[in-house]
Every structure is written in C-alpha cells, then in structure tokens.
C-alpha cells in the first residue's frame, strides 16, 4: 500500500507544482491546496500505514497495535495552518484583483519606478 501511496503523493505534488507555475492566480491557489494534501499524505505514509487500532487508549489493545499517533498530530497542525494560508491567499487574490484589475501574476510584476 505504501508504494502505491508514494506514487499518488508524487502525482499530487506534480499536479500542485504544475498549477503553481501557471500565470493565473486562481490556479496558483488551488495548487497550494493540492500541495498541502500531498504533504499530509506524505507525513502519514512516512509513519507507516500499519496498525489496527486508532490511537485512542482502549482496553484489550496492546501498544504495538495502535496506529502511529505522531504523524497524525503533525498533520492536524498542518491542516489548520494550510487552511489559514489558503484563506489568506483567497483574500489576497480577491483584493489584488479589485485593486489591480487582473489575476495574471505576470502583469502584477513590480517595475523600476513602482516597486
């Protein structure tokens, strides 16, 4: 399963980077969203997908049966932060479109006189 997951993670990263390199602001934001999904799955896979019980203490479950809780804790933090970043980007895109009238990042380039 980990092998397949690794390939899928690679695919997610690829799609995310491709989107982020485009000129349209919307595609860039979607790209960052995909990138965080890929990163979350990467952390999960790194810890191993084995384990038969969710990481909640219960009677009759031996310690080795729990799923690794550390990647989950890290991902939980990451999900919240990626949400913050995504919403920040969205407002940034909305406001810059309002002010500048374009969503093409190439046209937003600063010039010598107007840095």
């Amino acid at each position, binding site marked *: 399963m980990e092998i397949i997951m690794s390939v899928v993670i*690679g695919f997610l990263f690829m799609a995310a980077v491709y989107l982020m390199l485009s000129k349209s602001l*919307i595609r860039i934001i979607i790209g960052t969203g995909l990138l965080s999904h890929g990163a979350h799955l990467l952390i999960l896979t790194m810890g191993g997908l084995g384990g038969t019980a*969710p990481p909640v203490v219960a009677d009759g479950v031996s310690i080795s049966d729990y799923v690794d809780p550390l990647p989950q804790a890290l991902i939980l933090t990451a999900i919240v932060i990626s949400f913050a970043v995504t919403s920040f980007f969205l407002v940034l895109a909305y406001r810059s479109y309002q002010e500048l009238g374009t969503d093409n990042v190439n046209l937003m380039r600063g010039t010598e006189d107007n840095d």
Partner: protein
Amino acid sequence: MSLVFLIFLPIIAALFIPLLFKKIGQIHTGWFVLVVPVILFIYYATLLPTTMDGGTRVSEFQWIPSLDISFIAYLDGLSLLFSLLITGIGSLVVLYSVFYLDKKREQLHNFYVYLLMFMTAMLGIVQSDHLITLYLFWELTSISSFLLIGYWYTRDRSRFGALKSMMITVFGGLMMLGGFVLLSIMGNTYSIRELISQAPELLGHEFFTWALVLILLGAFTKSAQFPFYIWLPDAMEAPTPVSAYLHSATMVKAGLYLVARFTPIFAASGTWVWLVTGIGLFTMFWGSFFALKQKDLKGILAFSTVSQLGLIMSLLGASALGFHVEDAAGTVFKYAAFAAIFHLVNHAVFKGSLFMIAGIVDHETGTRDIRKLGGLMSIMPISFTIAMIGSFSMAGIPLFGGFLSKEMFLTAMLAIAEFDLFSMDVWGILFPVLAWIGSVFTFVYSFYFVFHTFAGKHKPEELPKHAHEAPIGMLVSPAILAVSVIAIFFIPNVVGDWLVKPAVLAIQPFMYSNPEEIDIHVSAWHGANTEFFMTLGIFAIGALLFWSFRKWKQAYDAFPDSVSLNRLYDSFMYLSDGGANRFSAVYMTGFIRSYLVYMFGFVVLIVLSTLVITDAFVLDLSNTAPIGIYEIIILIALVGGTITILAAKSRLTAIIALGAVGYSVALFFVIFRAPDLALTQLVIETISVALFLLAFYHLPKVSKKEERMGFKLGNAAIALGVGITMTLVALASHSQKILPSISEYYKETVYSEAGGGNIVNVILVDYRGFDTLFEITVLGIAGIAIISMIKLRLNKKEGQHENK
C-alpha cells in the same frame, strides 16, 4: 575610577544630547558637550606621573566571557598620549564648534551625538588591549566619520565623500580584522600585551607575513597613505570642526597608533620596515607635491595632512630599525621613534589650528577658494597671526615646534642611509633624498596656504560676504593651539619627558625598560651638521620655488585627471554598482513564476543529490500494509479529481474537483484509523470550499491564457521532477527507520503521565503544547492580515525623495 567606564562616558553622555537640544534650545548644546572631554582630559592628565615612571593602568570588563571577549582598558605611555590628544583637541574643537555651528539652523543634536560617539570609539581604539574590541571601536570610528562627513546630507558632495571614506576605511578595517584573527591564531590569545611578549615565537610562523600585510592595510587606509589617501580630500565636505578633529588630529592618526602599537611584534621583519618606511615617505612626498595643486583651503590642508601622516609613518617604520642594531639606544637609530611621537604631537597642534583658521576664513568670507582670497591680513589680523604660526611650524621654521621634530626627522632619515640590513645599504640613500624633496614642498605649500590667503591684493568683489574678523570665541581654540606651538619650541624637553618618552617606551620595549633610559635631549641648535645644511637648503629652495610659483604651477596641468586614483575609485564604484544591478536583474525578473522555478528546481537538485551522495535511497518492500479495495477506490477518486482540476476550464469545476480531492483525503484518514484527522479535514474542507466559492464569485473566470507550449512544457518538466523526488523520498523514508520513533514513548505514557486517552489530542495539547500555541498564533496572524487587507486601499500618492 574604572577606565573602561571612562571610555564609554562620551557615548553615555550622548544619550542626553537630543533631550538637551530639544528642551534647552536657547543655550548652545555644545556647552553641555564641552564638559565631557574637559573632565576626561583632566582625569587623564592626572595619570601622567604614572606613565612617566613607566607604569601602566589596566581595567577589565567582561563582555562575552564564553567567547573570551572583554573590554580591557590598558593605559601606557602611548595610549595616554593619544587619550590626551583625543580629549584635549576634542575640548577645543567642541568649543570652536559652539561658535561655528549656528544653534538655530543646524541639527546640533545629530552633530554632537556623532561627535561623542566618535570620541568613545577613538578612546576605545587607543586603550583596548583586546584585538576584537579594538576592531569594534575601529569600525565605530569609520561609522561616526561617515555620519559626520555626511552631516550636511542634502549636499551631493557630502554624501559622496562620506561613502568614499566609509568604503575605503571599512575595506581596510576588514583586512585588519583578518590580520587580527591570524595573530590570535598564532599566539592563541587576543591580548596585544601577551602577543608582544611572545613576539619572537610569532616571527617564524607561516601566517606572520599575512598578518603583517593585512594589519598594515588597515593602518594605511585609516591613515590615508598612498594609494588609499583619496578619501581624505573628499572628507573635507564635513563641517570644519570635524575636519580639524577627525581628519587631522585624531582619527587619521589611528593608523599611526596601530603601527606604533604593533611595532614590537613586527619590528623583526624586513617587510615591515620597507613597507612602513617606504610607503610613508612616498606618501609624504606625494601629498606635499599635490597640495600645491589644490585651490580649496581645506584641500591644501587635506593633502598636507596626508603628507604629514606619511612623514610620521616613515619615522615609525624607521623606529623598527632599532630592533636590528646592537645597543641601538646609544646610536643614531634611537631618534626615529622619538621624532615620530614628537612630530605627531606637533602636527596635532599646528594642523588643528590651521583647520580652524580655514574654517574661520570660510565662515567670515563665504569662500574657501584660494584664488578669490587674498589681502585678509589687515582685515583679520588675529587669524593671520595664528595661521602664520601654524604654517611656519609646519614648514619647520625655528621658533616654532615643528622645526625641532623636522630636524629630528631628517636625522632619522639620514640614519637609514647608514643601515646595512634588508638591502638598505643600496637603496638607503633614497630615503633622505625623498625626505628632503618632500620637506621642500612642505615649505612651499605652507607659505602658499598662509600668504595667498592673507597677503596680496584684497578682492572684495569676489567674496560672497563682506570679510571681517571672527568673533572672539571662535578664535580662542586656535589661539590656544598657536600658543602651544610656540611653547613646544621653548620647552621641548618637558613635552619629551612627560608625553613622548613614555610613548616611545611602548613602541620600543626591546630597547628600553623605563622612560628615563631614553637618552634624547631636544635642542634647537646642535652644530653645523648635515641636518642643519639640509634645513638651510629647504629654506633656500623652498623660498625660491614659492617666489616663482606662478611661473611653474602650470606644470600641474601635465597630470591628466583621467588616470588619477580618484577615477579608478569612481569607475570601480560605478562598475560594481552597475554590474551588481545587471547581474541581479538577470535572475530577479519580478515574475513570481521564475522564483518558484528556482525554488522547486533547487528542491529537486538538493534532495536528489543528497539521496545519491549519501546513498540514502533504500527500497524495502517488506513491512508494508496490505492493499485494500476501498483504498483503491478512494485513490482513483483522488487522482481523478486532480486530473479534473488540471483540465478544468471553468472555475466551478476546479473548485468542486478540489473539494473532491479534499474529501478523498478525509476518507483516507478514516481508513487509516485517524478519526481526529478525518473530522478536522471534513470541517476544514467544507469551510474551504465555501470560502473558495465566496471569493470566486468576485474573481475572473479561469481563462486559458495564451500560454505557449514551451512555457507549459517547462512547467511540466519541473512539476514532474518535484513529483518524482517526493515519491522517492516517501519510499526511502518508509523503507528505513534508523532512529526509534518517539511515538512509542507517547503511546506508553499517555495515560500514566498525561492522564488522557486520545493519544493524538494529548500530544497536541500536552507533549507538544507549544506547537499548538504557535499554530494558533499563525491563525491569528492570518486573521489580522486578512482584515487589514480588506481594509487596505492602494495609496496613489507619489513617494517623497530627499532630493526632490
């Protein structure tokens, strides 16, 4: 009283200057400032008897003990002499500035803060026994000099001069730091005293010559030696009190101090003698020759300072010869060090007064152009008298202090001709000859300065102001200096015993152990010897040249401006500025895509090369989880969603597909037994999609911009590279577990230590509570940023520029 504290007294006083300037503006701030150097001068003067007996004072203050860095104030004869010059001339300059700078029009708080900062820096240089703090103070003088030269910062020339002096002296300072580090490696200590005590062992070290050259670069740039002197004439844009203080009496002498201080370490080296004496003497000749070309009063004085600094430098170089001669204390080689220090004192005194006179002339006539000046003798009689005393001392005429040290300079230079080491027996004769030529030109420019300003025909129509004598307060400081010039001539041995001999002891500890052993008696007349005839020659030829100056001054036009050192500096600055701009413009395109390409490109490059170099890639297929049917279905949904995003033409499709991908990830979390993640992901994904829809309502359509094929292919190549890299990383990290995971500890102790059941939650709020705290902080920052962005409106107003 702690000596270290006294070093910092001026800068502590500087803290109160802005307050005094703002609150008590009707009294000139300079009066408050004056107290500081006067107190310090009096205190340092009380230490004179200590150093006269060869004693020293040390006080230490730990600064960074873990790095073995501390402020060590070490006062011996040399340090005390410099401290007295700094505070003494400093007091007079502050007094002078009270009348020179108008309290209503000038930014006095800036000026005096810089000046006091400089005073601390300078005292720090001459008293530090620790190499690193010495370097610190050294750079602080460069910075305060920069600020003071650029004090009238609205003038282009001021900013240019400030930058030039900073570039050159900081370059030298960095070189010197390199030399210091080498020295500390060689001697395994930062203390100059300890380094001096192990000088013989240092001599054979492989770094010795490197350290020597690097430290000399620091000294030569600071003391404006050839070819680094070019910053000093441009530094004359500073207010005249600054020129008198920094650029003649104190800061430019820091290089001389450095050479004097390190003479005991490097004296044994022939390279040292040749470099210091040779460069010094050549600078003396060069500066005196080009002083006559100048049209600006302060320009003449600047070149004259360069020349005089070279003279003292060459004497310091010659003082190292005493190391190589048996019983040097009894031979002619004993004079060099004494002459160096003696002339240093003389120069500080007469050059300080001359700068102040130049400032007075500028202040009262409105110009410093010597072609417009003339005939001021009857209008400004007191200034004329002071200028004449200073100039005659500089020219080396009897009845003035400069005569004595100039004679001794010739004696020391003649002694070099008799020296027979380091091929001096062949080239040695050049030294007295060059010294003599330099002295002739010194004589001529001294007369040029004073008589072309004060004698001749008065040209009131060319002066911007109606000329008149300066107010009495402005004349006090130069008058005190002028009186000292004459006093030195009549009591040279008092000066010698009190100031010079203790300092000589610090330069030549290999010859003397006590100042009283120095058997030098200064007298104005010592028979009709070679020096005497050389001096007569200087007067005769000098007077002749001065008299015929108008006839031969066209000779200076033969030197083309286009190949000067200044041009070299200008084109270097221009090229480095333009070159750096062009170079960064090549990759700093302003396109976000370019920067992302660099980042992703380097991620691929660095991660892959690390994998290859450290041989980290391992593929281990055992210990994998089984492949289940639900996982495969979700995977297909996930990949399908991603492809849909890539291909989507409308924004709604893209949003929905992104939502699908997010929900698939949530389902993954369910399957891989991560209930908390699944819950969070579902909530967040729902809000995200709602936010996207909200924002997209305002945003333009996802338009397929005219993106060229090459552009797309390039993106695809980088994207593929990143994808493959991440796959490899994921595989490699799964296949090898080198360190045991800390999760085992969490699993075992979650109930016993933290009293919780949900391991993930306990990790977040307990074991790694700070992580969560900062996560919340990030959320808060994002929230503030969002609010401010919504409120923000682009300001179309034009930016202010200081030149506009």
